[in-house]
């Protein structure tokens, strides 16, 4: 009984971390929507102060958004550290448990101490070590399928993510901002996966054979559309970090045409006639092409999710879990499309644009979960960790191994 409670709390804690991450992505969206990413010129300090002790007089305008983003990011970092240690302690025992937890704590203290040095080479070194942590963690996941290694990857990723956010400020690199935005999405998917794997319904789904009949084509359709959503988020991040506002101000046409002109004369005319209050970088042909790619991909995703929802429902029936999730996904993509259209028609107001970012991240999470489920259900569930006592002799193994080894 105690074990079950502990398990449930781990799941809830992981869910809390995922929600905090989604909130963080939302506030990050507010930062870019308000062009406020550089309003606090220093990092990891804020205006020379310890960021947790910044006087209220500095919390104004864009600085409010940026500083709030930093504080929530710190909270997500703390939650992730706790989650990583919790997963480690849950899955291991004896010396492995004690030493592992001590090593994680030790690394956190060392990283915290190194942050105090406040030199860019130190930050870059921490980022590289974090990257190594991610690679090593994935290697161990493939090797052992232990959820604890998901925790290690998440912890390494959150450190890397924090450093990327800081380096974007102190190195003045927009490109880092795009990586920062992309890694945020992947991190959310990772934490959401941990939340799924620690949930009770994951276990009952594993035991259920209601959806074994899902075809290979549908399984791969879910995977491909999820990758399309991820690509779409990268395109969106690229558009946001160009600081040029809306490259195309009308919808459903683009500058009154199905496909806009991008010759120099057309670009000059566009720039002469656009008066952007917050995004003064001139529009280029590349900006327009990226925007068009975003629109085309949006419709591909809509058709993909619609086809998937229809196919899964026809194959498994309306009551199957996958049918319900794919229908929810379709609804989210539809809503996302509407938000995207309003972002254009209303000239990118910060609230609508930010809602577009948040729903995009949530769509990626649902797509990823659907992919994990779709790729997994065609195999027999293997031994699992969550219903096994940490003191049992059974080796704790996550079901994710099944998904990894049988994804065809």
């Amino acid at each position: 009984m105690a074990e079950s409670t502990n398990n449930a709390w781990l799941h809830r804690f992981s869910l809390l971390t995922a929600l905090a991450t989604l909130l963080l992505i939302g506030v990050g969206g507010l930062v870019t929507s308000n062009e406020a990413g550089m309003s606090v010129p220093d990092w990891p300090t804020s205006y020379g102060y310890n960021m947790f002790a910044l006087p209220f007089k500095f919390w104004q305008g864009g600085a409010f958004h940026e500083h709030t983003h930093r504080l929530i990011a710190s909270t997500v970092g703390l939650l992730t550290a706790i989650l990583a240690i919790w997963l480690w302690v849950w899955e291991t025992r004896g010396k492995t448990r004690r030493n592992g937890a001590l090593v994680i704590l030790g690394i956190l203290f060392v990283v915290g101490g190194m942050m105090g040095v406040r030199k860019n080479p130190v930050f870059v070194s921490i980022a590289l070590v974090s990257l190594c942590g991610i690679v090593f963690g994935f290697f161990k996941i493939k090797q052992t399928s232990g959820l604890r290694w998901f925790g290690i990857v998440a912890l390494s990723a959150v450190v890397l993510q924090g450093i990327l956010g800081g380096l974007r400020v102190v190195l003045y690199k927009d490109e880092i901002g795009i990586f920062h935005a992309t890694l945020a999405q992947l991190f959310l998917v990772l934490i959401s996966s941990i939340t799924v794997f620690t949930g009770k319904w994951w276990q009952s789904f594993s035991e259920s054979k209601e959806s074994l009949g899902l075809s290979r084509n549908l399984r791969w359709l879910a995977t491909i559309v999820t990758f399309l959503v991820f690509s779409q988020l990268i395109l969106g991040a690229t558009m946001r970090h160009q600081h040029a506002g809306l490259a195309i101000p009308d919808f459903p046409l683009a500058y009154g045409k199905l496909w806009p002109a991008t010759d120099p004369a057309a670009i000059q005319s566009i720039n002469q006639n656009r008066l952007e209050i917050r995004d003064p970088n001139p529009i280029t042909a590349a900006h327009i092409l990226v925007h068009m790619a975003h629109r085309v991909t949006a419709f591909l995703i809509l058709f993909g999710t619609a086809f998937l929802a229809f196919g899964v429902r026809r194959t498994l029936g309306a009551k199957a879990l996958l049918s319900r999730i794919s229908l929810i996904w379709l609804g989210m993509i539809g809503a996302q499309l509407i938000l995207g259209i309003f972002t254009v028609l209303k000239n990118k107001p910060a609230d609508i644009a930010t809602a577009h970012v948040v729903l995009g991240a949530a769509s990626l999470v649902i797509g990823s979960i659907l992919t994990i489920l779709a790729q997994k259900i065609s195999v027999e569930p293997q031994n699992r960790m969550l219903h096994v006592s940490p003191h049992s002799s059974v080796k704790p193994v996550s079901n994710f191994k099944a998904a990894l080894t049988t994804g065809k």
Partner: protein
Amino acid sequence: MKNQARWIAFLTLSVALHSATAADVTGTITLKGTPPPEKDIPMDANCGKLHAGPVKTRFYAVNDKAQLADVVVSLKGAGVKASGAPATPVVLDQVGCEYVPYVAAVQAGQKLLVKNSDPFMHNVHALPAAAGNKEANKAQMPKAPDLEFAFATPEPFLKFKCDVHPWMFSYVSVFDHPYFAVTGKDGSFKIANVPPGKYTLEVLHRKAAPIGAAVTKEIEVKDQSVTADVVLEVK
């Protein structure tokens, strides 16, 4: 002592001869066509209090005679040579959550002082594009000392922005010679002490004649002032 006196006489004579032969290039920039209407800037509460009414964007500062301000005019030609930066700094102020002036020009190496005349904080973020000019981002509290900038490499419309108030922009063009000017409210400009010779007058405006689409005019300077009016067009 005698040598020193000769040198002083020589230099005085040189300067006098130069002044006698150099001339001014003057003119007016006008705008043909109707620019899009300026937008109201949605300022936050703090900044809004500093203005009696809505504040407009300043993309096309054109008067009722179609004369266009904030146009950067400069010369190109054999006679245009780099010179030492003047000691007088150019001043950029932050007033009512706007940069004043909106468009300015400096010589490479010349000091650019940024003031904060507002009762709250701004951050001054210089975003150069040319290699050799360093990006800088500094917070500036009210009544804080002026921030000092200088740029080594010529660059048109080097952008300054405040990320705390993301509608605040100013553009500073950097030249490696002294033959440039920014048009005033009446669209007029004056480039002083231009040595005789043939030049290309280059006219840049952020919207009407942006980088890559500068309007040019060939002129010849002799011993008298030259007038060169230019018309920019918005399509």
